[in-house]
């Protein structure tokens, strides 16, 4: 590996410390809501693999249901990697082929849909399956989105962005790789190119137009360290990537917040009706 010429910040974390906090988080927040089980969509990628490992550690593997939800174009390797995660963690599992449901809709009502629309339908179909299993299995849906994709808005609203709680949403992708390795996610999963696997040959970095390692460095400066975009460029980061990152963050902010409610009364949900979700529990 060549040494980066850019002034890269070391984003590595104390994996023992972070693992402890996240496992406690999953256990505490699920049990205080009156549950003891969880449902995780396991794609074969590193994010959901890490979440499956952490959730199994928090609740015991018998209390975790991993759902594999392939579509006909999904890579067989993804399914195999998901199997590996299920085998290593010992969680319960089920495979739900979403092809008939997705195709029933697409063929009849959206035959001309482009691949982004098709990908969104798949992501939302998986959400539907997860939430139905949340009810049947009696477990909360644990989310698998990391900080990089949340900030970039590289996610489907009400699809993979729908969950009851998210343990890894404040970890950048590079930190997810580090923690995944530390908790024992198989190397083949940690090392492969990240992909949403919504169409053949899709890779995140190909679609975004920049690497996660670079994006994380830029995001860390902009978000965590409060640098201006100009300061980040002045440090030597490519201007077009900095611009793209800033624009993605701004344009996709709607995916990160609850939809606005038109305020009419003196007290309105979202503005001045302020309670934590954990109100009355613990």
């Amino acid at each position, binding site marked *: 590996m060549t040494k980066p010429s850019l002034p890269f910040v*070391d984003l590595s974390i104390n994996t023992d410390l972070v693992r402890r906090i996240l496992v406690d988080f999953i256990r505490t927040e699920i049990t205080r809501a009156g549950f003891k089980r969880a449902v995780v969509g396991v794609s074969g990628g590193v994010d959901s693999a890490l979440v499956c490992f952490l959730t199994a550690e928090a609740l015991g593997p018998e209390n975790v249901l991993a759902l594999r939800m392939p579509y006909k174009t999904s890579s067989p390797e993804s399914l195999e990697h998901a199997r590996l995660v299920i085998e290593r963690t010992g969680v319960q599992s089920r495979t739900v082929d979403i092809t008939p449901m997705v195709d029933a809709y697409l063929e009849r009502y959206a035959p001309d849909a482009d691949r982004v629309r098709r990908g969104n339908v798949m992501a939302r179909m998986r959400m539907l399956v997860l939430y139905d299993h949340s009810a049947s299995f009696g477990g909360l849906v644990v989310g698998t989105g990391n900080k990089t994709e949340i900030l970039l808005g590289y996610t489907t609203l009400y699809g993979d962005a729908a969950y009851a709680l998210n343990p890894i949403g404040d970890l950048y992708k590079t930190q997810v790789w580090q923690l995944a390795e530390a908790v024992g996610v198989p190397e083949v999963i940690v090392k492969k190119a990240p992909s949403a696997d919504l169409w053949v040959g899709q890779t995140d970095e190909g679609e975004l137009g920049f690497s996660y390692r670079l994006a994380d460095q830029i995001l860390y400066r902009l978000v965590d360290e409060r640098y201006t975009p100009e300061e980040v460029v002045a440090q030597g980061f490519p201007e077009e990537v900095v611009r793209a990152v800033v624009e993605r963050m701004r344009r996709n902010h709607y995916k990160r917040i609850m939809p606005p409610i038109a305020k009419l009364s003196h007290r309105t949900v979202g503005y001045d009706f302020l309670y934590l979700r954990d109100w009355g529990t613990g």
Partner: protein
Amino acid sequence: MAFTLALVQFQTRLGDVMTNLERHLAWIRQAKDRGADVVAFPELSLTGYIVQDLVPAVACKPLQDDPVFGPLLEASTQVDLVVGFVEEDRRSRFFNSVAYLSQGEVVHVHRKVYLPTYGMFDEGRFFAWGDRVAAFDTRFGRFGLLICEDFWHVSPPYLLWLDGADVMLFPMASPGRGIVPAEERLGTARWVETVVQAYAGLFTVFAAFINRVGFEDGIHFWGGSAVYGPDGARLTQAPYHQEALVLQEVDLRALHRARARLPLLRDERTSLFQRELARILEQRGLPKAPPRV
């Protein structure tokens, strides 16, 4: 003169004062059985930390006939107590307060004077600003209380020192954050420990912070409550991230020894400080403090 200080770090039920009261009483019984003379709880220990719009619903008054303080004052006949609560005053202003209870009496109430209202914090939206920093006498010596953000500012501990506090107790609810750079501890833990340890050494006093544990939504509190002695050494520390009761004997004779060796208190030039502060405020016109009623 020596006494045994107990620090209790536990998980509160958010907004459920009566359940939290029961938890206090159980911890107090346990601490007393283990020989505690003073039992200190974290910030807002009776309510939970991120109370937001629950503030008026969970507020109470540190009075004998209050349903929450009645049982606590009763318990204080056995062992002195430091508890955190939302205080409602006679004119229905709500404060983030801690009370020192002893022998069935309210000895002292401290109202938080620095309400963090930035970043993830929003206390200034919900609470009234306390307006007094004072030490007070207990049956174990002269104490001072500050709450969390109060001691991120250097002036409140300094005032307590000048007011005669030899034991400083800092209840807090510190949300854990800061994982880069990778260290043994969270960034917040490193900072709080460094600062409180520094106060103990700089003021040659006993200083302790009592930090809660558990989660409120995605926010976690890291515990690690600790006591430092007048030579700046750490005397005891509770584990991170889990409920715990730790006890530490506080030997007040250590003040005598520390100050014989290092007479920082004797040599503190308060008149110089006062004169220069007056000059600085006069000449530089520093911004006024937040509005007070």
